[in-house]
């Protein structure tokens, strides 16, 4: 299936949504839905993104996202549970 859900923890700072959505736009990754909310840590926000891969690899989407300094961590959600993302790109979690 080409639709995946990822949970992204980001620094809660002005412009962070633009950083993430801008990355998706310029690399031609499709966002089906995006929800942003708080976490128990006021300095960290949580984004839940449904990405429609359409030919891109999830691994590459995650690796590019992880290059954003404001992105702290990324996990894939499968049936509501967190799944470790396939590690073909070693250490993309930094």
């Amino acid at each position, binding site marked *: 299936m080409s639709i995946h859900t990822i949970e992204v923890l980001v*620094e809660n700072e002005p412009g962070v949504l*633009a950083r993430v959505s801008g990355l998706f736009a310029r690399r031609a990754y499709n966002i089906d839905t995006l929800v942003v909310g708080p976490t128990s840590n006021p300095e960290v926000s949580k984004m839940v993104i449904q990405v429609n891969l359409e030919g891109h690899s999830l*691994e590459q989407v995650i*690796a590019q996202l992880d290059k954003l300094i404001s*992105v702290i961590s990324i996990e894939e959600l499968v049936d509501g549970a967190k799944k470790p993302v396939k590690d073909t*790109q*070693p250490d*993309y979690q*930094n």
Partner: protein
Amino acid sequence: MTTQHVPTANGTAMSGATSLVKSLEAANVDVMFGLPGGAILPAYDPIFDSTIRHILVRHEQGAGHAATGYAQVTGRAGVCIATSGPGATNLVTPLMDAGMDSVPLVAITGQVPSAAIGTDAFQEADIRGITMPFTKHNFLVTKAADIPRAIAEAFHIATSGRPGPVLVDIAKDALQTQTTFNWPAKIELAGYNPRITPDNQSIADAAALIAQSKKPVFYVGGGVIKAEASKELAQLVELLGAPVVTTLMARGAFPDSHPLHLGMPGMHGTVAAVTALQKADLLITLGARFDDRVTGKLSTFAVSAKVIHADIDPAEINKNKFADVPVVGDLRETITALIPALKAALEKSRPDLTPWNASMQKLKSTYPLGYTLPDDGSLSPQAVIERIGKISGSETIFTSGVGQHQMWASQFISYEHPRTWLNSGGAGTMGYGVPAAMGAKVGAPDATVWAIDGDGCFQMTNQELVTCALNNIPIKVAIINNESLGMVRQWQTLFYEGRYSNTSLESKRVPNFPMLAEAMGCVGLSCERPEDLDATIEKAMSINDQPVVVDFRVHRDAMVWPMVAAGTSNDEIMIARATAPDWDSQEL
């Protein structure tokens, strides 16, 4: 986490502007290139008293490329500074350029006062938004107290991991407000922790794969230069004894004079380098990124090769080409770890590379880079560039613009050392040459610095020669004057039936380059006849107290060969118009 030295000024009361300058001093900045204006003006007052040398440019684009030239020569972060709005947008091209070529750059811009942000205030531009796509990171600082941390983080991000440009936009009121200087003792960024040491398993896998390969080739990219890994690379190459290619960004990473060096791959690469990648059974990729100018049509690139891909940026792995063995980490550490691992693997089994090396050497000798002299006895652009390289020697630093002259400068100058060839590879920025040479000369004042520039490129950024003349930065500029946008003209010759729409610059008539040079405080020379070539270059070499500009008036129709036309396969490389190598006589 990174710890850093805490300066004595810590805890002292001062303005945000002074804290900016103290921060730059704490980051060990010795020079910056910039031009003031209203929003950044508070910072220029303490700059007046600082030990940091500020070089006043004539256009902010010049400041950006100069900072890049400085960074590429020294390996340290280059620094440029500009005001808000148009000052900041003039930095956009150099920042994009630095992003494409992984250059550590810190750009500081003034912003309108924080209360005015979002009101379309005078000289307001959302430079953080504009530069988001191509900076490694950027900051908008609206409080004086946040300045030192932002600057410290900017330098840390720019220079660590895969280097890149970082912009710090500072609201004017943050510069004007009183604060207490507080340079952070440590930098901790939750979302940034680049992997430096490669994991042992990937090193072992890489060594095992190399030890099985009968046709390996080292595909060397600019990352080797950034990682200062040339010495280690040379040891690795000696150990395996396999051929090497160096990309446009890697020229100088491995000596051109080495017999195993096949030259540059890609669109204007040598037949041997292009073919080595195509026919290899293993690409040992070191700090290169499978750019389309190297791979040609990707689906036909190196189809039978396995791939080892070593890079500090995990996002490069599997981006364009699948990597059988990815190795993420600093290249110097990677190569250093690979040497003993490969030694051990080769002791167990050592494939015979002789047939592979012999066929590559045969290609290299059958299809050397070359050019034909113009029939009419006029000056050959390739000959000009080749002679400049020979006469000025291998310690010289070269920069170039973008176009035919750039490709010839990459092809016909022999590079023996890293950081002696500076050009705009990923972005292809016309106008890079002169300001980058200025920055290079500031970073390496004892070196001879030549900008090999095009007549088109030169007309984009030559104003920085005024900066050079006034600040004792005696660079040398060779204008390869073919009176046209030559590279574009070449494509029109080949793909548009010779319909030369808007590529004639008439620059043998206007401008008068030597007079323009003299007007900017430089020595202006010109050369039109082959018999005057060496004497003119020697004259330029003898002038070291002023910038020199030489107008080399060359034949207009010379073309860059070999060529793999855009979008076609590397297998379709042409050595001259409609002329493919004679593959039948080669055993590959």
